[in-house]
């Protein structure tokens, strides 16, 4: 079917136009003439309303539909809701989902897992939905914003009578009657000029064309939806960018007090100098809460130092050369930040562990002590001096244990039960030295029977600390969440643009009033707004009353039905 899109005013319209782009006359005569006009996008044709679409055009047309957009929103809504039925896989660090859901939630849980709902938000279909919403946002907006811009930037002032009177807010009256009662005659041109002056007081921008008038206010609010869609597109793109390698890093690492740990895939090292946890004191609680006897943590704090590696970074044989670049007391809600690298307080654990001991070498028979000398549990040195005596570290078992054959082994590389085998040389000792096995922890010393193993040597020699002051212990491991997120600025920019658009689009309304006077005194007035009709009617009624026509705002909307 070929539409005749030429209007009686002589304007040639685009295919799919509902209201003449020039005079506003409805182009389809078959509809109910008593109903208000459909004013969506000012009745202009959308880009997608073209004939004989190609395949690409068909895709465009599909995504240009608001109906499709709403379906996409609702499907995403349902999908997102399904994802909250059971905890998602990523809530756990260490589970096998194929077993976990069945064991914890039974058959239903297993079905949930099999459907892929245990990782809803990482699934291909959920991502596809987000991409489709993005496509819909771009295409819907472009499809409408260009024709709408064209229509609003060249509006004709004198509109067709049926356009004016079929607005939701409309008024029709004879000025001659109103004036006659006051004993004056009507000058249509002057009346329009006066009306224009009145409307300008209300902040309208008024254009007149002889006996016709167009008053307009807050047109910019029409761009609100398109601005907020741009913001959402930027936001969605930024979210998708995070999937690119190098754009996004997310690691959980434990840092023992005093330890410097390399952050993988970066040149950085982080040291936890000290971790503190404090709890609320009783006098900081209200009386009623104190009665509950609960302890509430007040503060978790990691005193962190960030280093960047300058030399020997990938050479395990050499000590890396580090340079301090940042220092920060990391709190919950207050991360360390350095050039896009972020370290958050995530958790902590009480992990009492030896860092170093500073014992003395003692001769039990003479009662003389030599030293002290300091042994570190991590990467201990090889040679130690205690007065005239020399101790050489022959073997080190950080986590001492005995295997089935009774041979000493180390279970892990963590100093949970450190044991040192020294060879002691010095005055009165053989040149090849005497072997001595030393357990710094008293518990290990008893359990593995240090003195029995050392045999005769332990009759004379002993290595031990004087007091707890010579023992350095790290109490806490602080778990930090190390992150890098290059997309963040784009995310915030997208969100800000979205907010701007939404506020423009909802807190202001585009209001327009058209009026024309025919045959010297027949006034026809129509008004349209995209929302808040209440205020629109009030504006029109106020203008009319200023012009000497008193009308109840409510009656204005019934004009069409009465006619």
């Amino acid at each position, binding site marked *: 079917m070929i539409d005749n899109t030429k209007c009686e005013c002589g304007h040639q319209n685009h295919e799919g136009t509902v209201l003449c782009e020039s005079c506003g006359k409805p182009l389809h005569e078959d509809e109910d003439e008593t109903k208000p006009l459909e004013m969506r996008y000012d009745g202009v044709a959308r880009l997608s309303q073209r004939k004989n679409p190609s395949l690409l055009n068909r895709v465009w047309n599909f995504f240009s539909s608001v109906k499709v957009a709403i379906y996409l929103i609702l499907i995403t809504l349902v999908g997102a809701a399904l994802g909250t039925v059971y905890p998602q896989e*990523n809530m*756990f660090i260490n589970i096998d989902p194929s077993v976990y859901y069945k064991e914890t939630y039974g058959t239903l849980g297993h079905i949930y897992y099999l459907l892929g709902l245990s990782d809803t938000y990482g699934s291909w279909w959920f991502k596809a939905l987000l991409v489709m919403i993005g496509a819909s946002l771009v295409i819907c907006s472009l499809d409408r914003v260009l024709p709408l811009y064209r229509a609003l930037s060249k509006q004709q002032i004198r509109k067709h009578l049926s356009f004016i009177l079929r607005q939701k807010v409309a008024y029709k009256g004879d000025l001659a009657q109103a004036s006659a009662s006051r004993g004056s005659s009507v000058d249509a041109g002057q009346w329009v000029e006066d009306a224009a002056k009145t409307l300008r007081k209300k902040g309208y921008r008024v254009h007149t064309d002889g006996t016709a008038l167009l008053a307009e206010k807050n047109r910019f609010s029409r761009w609100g939806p398109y601005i907020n869609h741009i913001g959402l597109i930027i936001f969605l793109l930024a979210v998708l960018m995070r999937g690119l390698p190098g754009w996004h890093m997310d690691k959980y690492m434990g840092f023992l007090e005093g330890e410097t740990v390399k952050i993988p895939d970066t040149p950085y090292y982080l040291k936890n100098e000290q971790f503190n946890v404090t709890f609320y004191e009783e006098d900081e609680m209200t009386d009623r809460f104190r009665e509950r006897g609960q302890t509430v943590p007040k503060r978790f704090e990691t005193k962190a130092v960030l280093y960047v590696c300058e030399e020997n970074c990938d050479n395990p044989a050499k000590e890396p050369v580090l340079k301090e670049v940042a220092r920060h007391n990391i709190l919950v809600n207050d991360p360390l930040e350095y050039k896009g690298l972020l370290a958050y307080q995530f958790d902590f654990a009480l992990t009492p562990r030896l860092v170093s001991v500073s014992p003395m070498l003692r001769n039990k028979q003479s009662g003389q002590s030599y030293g002290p000398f300091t042994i570190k549990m991590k990467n201990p040195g090889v040679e130690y001096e205690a007065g005239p005596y020399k101790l050489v570290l022959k073997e080190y078992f950080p986590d001492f244990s005995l295997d089935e054959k009774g041979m000493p082994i180390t279970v892990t590389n963590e100093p949970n039960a450190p044991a040192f085998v020294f060879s002691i040389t010095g005055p009165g000792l053989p040149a090849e030295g005497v072997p001595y096995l030393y357990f710094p922890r008293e518990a290990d010393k008893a359990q593995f029977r240090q003195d029995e193993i050392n045999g005769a040597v332990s009759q004379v020699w002993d290595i031990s600390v004087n007091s707890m002051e010579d023992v350095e212990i790290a109490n806490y491991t602080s778990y930090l969440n190390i992150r890098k997120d290059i997309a963040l600025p784009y995310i915030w920019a997208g969100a800000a643009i979205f907010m701007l658009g939404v506020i423009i689009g909802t807190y202001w309304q585009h209001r327009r009033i058209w009026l024309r006077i025919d045959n010297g005194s027949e006034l026809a007035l129509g008004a349209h707004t995209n929302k808040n009709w209440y205020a629109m009617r009030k504006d029109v009624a106020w203008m009319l009353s200023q012009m000497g026509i008193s009308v109840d705002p409510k009656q204005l909307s019934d004009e069409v039905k009465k006619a």
Partner: protein
Amino acid sequence: MNLESVSSTALLIAFILYAVSFFLFVIAVTGKKWSSRDPEQHTRKWATLGLFAAIAGLAAQLVFFFTRWYVAGHIPTSNMFEFMTFLAMMIMAAFVVIYLIYRSAVIGMFALPVGVVILAYALVFPPDIQPLIPALQSYWLYIHVTTAALGEAFFAVGFAAGLMYLIRVTDFRNSKRERRSLEFVIYVVLVILAFVIAVYTFKGMNYSASFEQETTRIDQNGQEVTEVGVVDYVLPPLVKPYNSVTVEMKPFLGMTEPLFEAPSWMNGVNAGRKLNTFIWSVIFGAVLYALIRLVLRKPISEAIQPALSGMDAEDLDEISYRAIAIGFPIFSLGALIFAMIWAHEAWGRFWGWDPKEVWALITWLFYAAYLHLRLSRSWHGVRSSWLSVIGFIVVMFTLIGVNLIIAGLHSYAGV
């Protein structure tokens, strides 16, 4: 009298004033046809009194809010009691704003009960002032929670106006389905009220029961941790917590043992107790509903309809829409954007698919669909009003339901 008790007294006064304001608005609307008076003058007089009561209530609640803030040292929006009272306060503020624009007494008749019910609901939670845990020590607690609640308050007004529209236009003789749906919505509101009544009834009777529950959870090292905790009941236990033994239970109507155990998949903190409370609320709600029906001798919504006869249906539709249009940007800002900024600062990620986050997104998507349907598909009137009603149910699920049945990072907001 110390400041803490000044604070709780002020809240009680606010609650009473809101209830009084509600009755004043009811008189303003229903008393029009009383003999020997000018209807318009009558409405104006009583509605003005109602508005004064509402504003006085708001002032009292502000006293509560700021004294509590002073005593606690942090903004009182950090647990369920504080959040719900704040939400009620925001609903009252949103009501005053909308009322000053439209000046219609009927709005008071519908918006005030929503605020009153939510405040009553809040009063059931333990009102202790708790010290702030580290995760909440941020000025975003002030910004995020308050803006989110304000946005939701406008949705509540949109819900009230939408419900009014539906009651106004429904033809009760010929539309069974609509009538049933409306009655169901009213029943849901009554269930919340019934919950409050049930808790206070049994508290008044000094009823108590307690259970020892064994829970297993997985810590962040992937290890299973088993904990034993005591769960105290105020309402007679029809349902006992999952995997628990009875420590003490006062007999109730000859019942000495709970009827059944809560299912294992209810993950929330104290899920068993909450399920038990829910069942009691449904029962009390049904009793309450039946009593009102008995008095009225017709469906409640049908009985309300005459009060709305003076109201223009189109105005109601527009009030509902405008309240939601005002609320949507505030909600987006508070519940999503500020939430993302805070999440980024506290947890190191702006979005983590935590159930509460997801449900805030669902609420947002729902109202986005509402706006698109209204603007581009011309859904006005009945369909739009039903969406505003369903939308508020989604809001309430996000606020209460998520804490009830799904555990997550926001679980500290529940009790």
